[in-house]
């Protein structure tokens, strides 16, 4: 039986996962035009420059939308349902797909302020950025 899904860390996004493992949320910023982007890519989605840097961000944002997932694609997650899958809009102006965690997660609403935290996975080197109600 396969386990819970884990990222296949690659050359493009290694810094993201290294930051997450240390409890730091990082985004890509284009040195040429200043654009912040997520998910991590090989080039800037505005100017196509490959000169990208990683910058730590506040980890603060608000909930844009969410769903209570009861039937995960990977059935290994069934022990956690309903899973509060969400999109969070970071203060830095990008949106991330993530999860809302915490005992009060059933209080989540659109626009609710949230703060990043990092969730352990089955791989000790991988932590997932997730969000708690602020």
């Amino acid at each position, binding site marked *: 039986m396969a386990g819970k899904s884990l990222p296949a860390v690659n050359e493009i996004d290694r810094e993201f996962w290294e930051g997450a493992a240390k409890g730091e949320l990082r985004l890509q910023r284009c040195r040429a035009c200043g654009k912040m982007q997520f998910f991590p890519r090989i080039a800037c989605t505005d100017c196509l420059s490959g000169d990208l840097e990683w910058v730590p961000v506040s980890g603060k944002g608000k909930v844009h939308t969410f769903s209570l997932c009861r039937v995960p694609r990977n059935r290994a997650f069934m022990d956690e349902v309903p899973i509060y899958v969400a999109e969070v809009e970071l203060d830095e102006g990008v949106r*991330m*797909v993530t999860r809302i965690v915490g005992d009060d997660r059933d209080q989540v609403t659109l626009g609710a302020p949230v703060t990043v935290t990092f969730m352990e996975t089955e791989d000790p080197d991988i932590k997932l950025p997730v969000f708690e109600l602020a």
Partner: protein
Amino acid sequence: MLRKKVCLVGYGSTEYSRKSDRPLLSYYAEAMQNAMAQTGLTKKEINGFSMVTQASPDYSPYVAEQLGLELDWVLNGDCGGAGAVCAIRRAADAIEAGYLDVAFIVAGNAFDKNVSHQRVLEYQRANYVDVYGYGGPNTLFALVQRRHMEEYGTTLEQIGKIAVSQRFNAGPNPQALLRTPMTIEDYLNSRLISDPIRLFDCVMPCSGGECVVVASEERAKQITDKPIYLVTDAEKIGFQASNMLPDKTVTGMSVVGEHLFSEMSRDNIDLLAIYDDYPIAVMMQLEDLGYCAKGQGGPFVDDHDLTFAGDFPVNTGGGEISVGQAGLAGGMLHVVEALRQLRGEAGERQVNAAQTALVTGIGWLSYARNLNTTAALILERRS
């Protein structure tokens, strides 16, 4: 842009099944055979071929070898659920350029143990979505639907009316896997899959195949006395693709609609075949196509009868949510239903005096946006 001399001259469908171990290629062969029987075309006369697919081993040259086709033009149709509409557009381009005069466009799905058809998840879906335990497209559309409901006050009853109407339309359709009448209570009481998406919002994967035949006007007139003209068509790929704060409730169909309806009034469309992986997707497309203002899809649905007998017929054969989704034949199903209606072959569900139809295709759910591919075409019967 108006198309000049391109027609859809026939189609071939197979039966659909939820449980079948038939080989995948047999569905392609059967859909093509049925299209050949309808059009009277022999294999020698087919000089263009497109498999609508996202994965090997469905490459057009491979299938051509398996089925013994000798061709002047092939295309791997991509663009996911918009693939059928996009492939017809590409074939029309090539026909107008004179490279070929008869193209078969084919798509299908099977539970074939000998075919490894698993689509590789895009890296961003694998690394940044699946790791959270999401529910595939059900969750991705749930994230869209919640925004629509909260921003515009859209209700479950309004969204559910689309599912209920389409189930009614499936009643007289022998191809449909789900024909039992459904009430709005049935819809509301169906179990939650990924809140607010529930069971009766979801398509049912099945096996089956579809084929559509595209031809030059000159050949069309020799092949059939019911040529259906491609009037105009457009696509938008990657709508809002570089926007890190995209509007989740607006799709590329808003741009597609502007193109289409600069050539023809939307009020002249007799029936709509709207790609329906979810009812909320149908509602958003109706808005984006300009049938009502953004966010007014709920009241619009309240005000209209969406059945084949109604004032605004949508998905007159039941759509994918009632017929079943045979992989990328899901996009083809809408083209075929429009052809049945315009040729007067829709039986009990025939829309009275149907002369024009709008067909849409959507697909490729993108990271934190909505649809990466959107395309549509207008078909017309000319007497």
